[in-house]
């Protein structure tokens, strides 16, 4: 099952991706967490050593003037993803810090071809990868650019992470209105950092006209805020804290989406 997180910068995609990965693995599920952000940040909230490295360097090869993946998506994930210490059910993969090298005009030349090839491989894999027996959680970068380019893929659940203010709901409506979403993708929203019933209503009112259901409301949570301030992995946040309870509810919804109840 594929779950892709979308939303405005800072809306909480990586935070929810990490909490969701933690929740699903605690239930015995296998998860591959994929950080597509070109300024990566998911490793840190997962409790892994943060790096800028390209995990897929050299994983695209020249083919007839274009590029192709050097293996099936599953083979590449097996080969290139890194295990998460202390969580045997979690593996991690990142695109790598592209911005750092784009400053260098040599980026696409021979000296950096490994990383350029890695970026191409990553984009291709982000579109395609799925784990039928487990979960692929793909954390896209903030804004609409990657999804407009097709990185949300063609199947699974696309979760719009929405904060209760105009810039965030406007961005969510842009995602919903980008055109015909692939038939295999179920588009749903998570209202994040919600402090009151009024704020929840604001998000619901913005999304109802574009037909995006709000699956879960994640409240503002001091325990989560402290962990983020201190740069602690989010697995250290009390499982009974409001945000983690909301993510447990989200996991229920996603498991239902994977195994739809037989219609009566």
């Amino acid at each position, binding site marked *: 099952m594929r779950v892709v997180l979308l939303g*405005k*910068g*800072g*809306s909480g995609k990586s935070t929810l991706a990490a909490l969701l990965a933690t929740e699903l693995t605690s239930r015995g599920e296998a998860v591959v967490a994929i950080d597509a952000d070109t*300024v990566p940040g998911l490793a840190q909230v997962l409790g892994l050593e943060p790096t800028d490295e390209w995990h897929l360097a050299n994983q695209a090869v020249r083919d007839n003037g274009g590029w192709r993946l050097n293996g099936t998506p599953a083979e590449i994930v097996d080969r290139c993803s890194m295990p998460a210490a202390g969580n045997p059910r979690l593996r991690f993969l990142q695109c790598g810090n592209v911005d750092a090298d784009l400053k260098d005009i040599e980026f696409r030349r021979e000296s950096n071809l490994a990383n350029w090839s890695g970026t191409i491989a990553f984009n291709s894999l982000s579109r395609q990868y799925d784990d039928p027996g487990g979960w692929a959680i793909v954390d896209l*970068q*903030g*804004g*609409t*650019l990657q999804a*407009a*380019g*097709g990185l949300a893929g063609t199947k699974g659940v696309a979760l719009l992470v929405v904060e209760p203010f*105009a*810039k965030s709901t*406007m*961005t969510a409506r*842009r995602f919903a*209105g*980008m*055109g*015909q979403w692939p038939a295999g993708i179920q588009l749903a929203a998570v209202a994040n950092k919600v402090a009151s019933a009024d704020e929840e209503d604001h998000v619901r009112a913005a999304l109802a006209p574009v037909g995006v259901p709000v699956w879960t409301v994640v409240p503002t949570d001091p325990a989560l805020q402290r962990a983020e301030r201190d740069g602690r992995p989010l697995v250290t946040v009390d499982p009974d804290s409001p945000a983690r309870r909301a993510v447990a509810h989200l996991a229920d919804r996603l498991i239902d989406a994977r195994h739809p109840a037989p219609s009566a």
Partner: protein
Amino acid sequence: MAKIAVAGKGGSGKTTVAGVLARLLAEDGHDVLTVDADENPNLGISLGLGVERTERLLGAREALLPDGPAIACSMEEVVDDFAAEVGERLRIVQVRKFDHFRPG
């Protein structure tokens, strides 16, 4: 002319700082052109344009593309053509918006 760039992590408040700064400078009598270079642009909201007018702003980058509505002209012409009035001495120009699926 002074040029001010505002940078930082997503959600850190770049757009809010830029919007307030532009308003204050214009109120002090300076001519201010704001440039929203984000591909998911929302500076119009922070300037007080509202959602509808912000969504109607055109991307000036189109003017610089071979297949855009205009062939490359001077930067001043691009700004004159694409900038929208926000208030006295205050204008906004948006660079580009990715709000449709595109091939490739």
